């Protein structure tokens, strides 16, 4: 079956990554799932095996947010920033900075939700501090992904007997 909902990811200019994805739900529901900590914690896990441990959201202009994930080996990865623009249930602009700052400075994210016939289109644009920062972000999951791919293969092989 052709999956029309699949995520599209494109590089824009020299330092932006743009995500687009359709959801089969109203904009208000998508907004809630993306802004309420108890709901965010249920889906925003990061790479496989990681879970969201801390999710603090002060959803006001100038309000801070803080997210922390924990990996299978106990490693923690945290990020946070400040909300620059909040227009429920349509738009959020925020700053994004990882604790380890492997993106070489603050990035700016712009999330826009548009509703069409009861479905919601998400457009998320992340503008990194530099072309090198974008490169680092794209490379990291690739390097981790290689190891994780093997873990998952092993899991599959042992559970399928």
């Amino acid at each position, binding site marked *: 079956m052709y999956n029309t909902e699949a995520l599209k990811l494109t590089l824009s200019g*020299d330092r932006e990554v743009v995500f687009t994805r359709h959801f089969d739900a109203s904009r208000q529901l998508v907004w809630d799932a993306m802004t309420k900590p108890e709901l965010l914690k249920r889906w925003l896990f990061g790479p496989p095996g990681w879970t969201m441990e801390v999710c603090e959201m002060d959803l006001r202009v100038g309000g801070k947010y803080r997210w922390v994930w924990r990996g299978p080996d106990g490693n923690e990865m945290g990020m946070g920033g400040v909300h620059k623009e909040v227009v429920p249930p349509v738009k959020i602009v925020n700053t994004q900075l990882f604790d380890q700052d492997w993106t070489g400075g603050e990035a700016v994210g712009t999330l826009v939700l548009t509703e069409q016939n009861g479905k919601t289109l998400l457009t998320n644009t992340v503008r990194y501090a530099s072309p090198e920062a974008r490169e680092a972000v794209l*490379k990291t999951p690739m390097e981790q992904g290689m190891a994780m791919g093997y873990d998952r293969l092993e899991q599959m092989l042992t559970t399928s007997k």
Partner: protein
Amino acid sequence: MSPTARLDAAFAALADPTRRAILARLATGQASVTDLAKPFSMSQPAVSKHLKVLERAGLISRGRDAQRRPCRINPKPLAQVNGWLEKYREIWEENFQRLDGLLEEMKAVQKKQSPAKH
């Protein structure tokens, strides 16, 4: 150059809009410096400079013909960049598939809570 250094060079080369446009042109077939200079309304030395960066990054190779030295695209480093993008996409897609599941749950709850329409 090590494979990592070469990929770093590829990313740096791709950061420039003119070089991305040159690559897009070369994706349709090989071209000489003269061919490339025309649509970009750039001097040949300026184009040559960009080509040198692309060549050093392994993104293009140039023919031996001393007169024309036609440029052609090297697909391998570009495929590697796409590989990274794909891995990153997969991670996000897994998150979004969980979000799909959660939204279905939320829709069911909403249906139950709102009184039936008459």
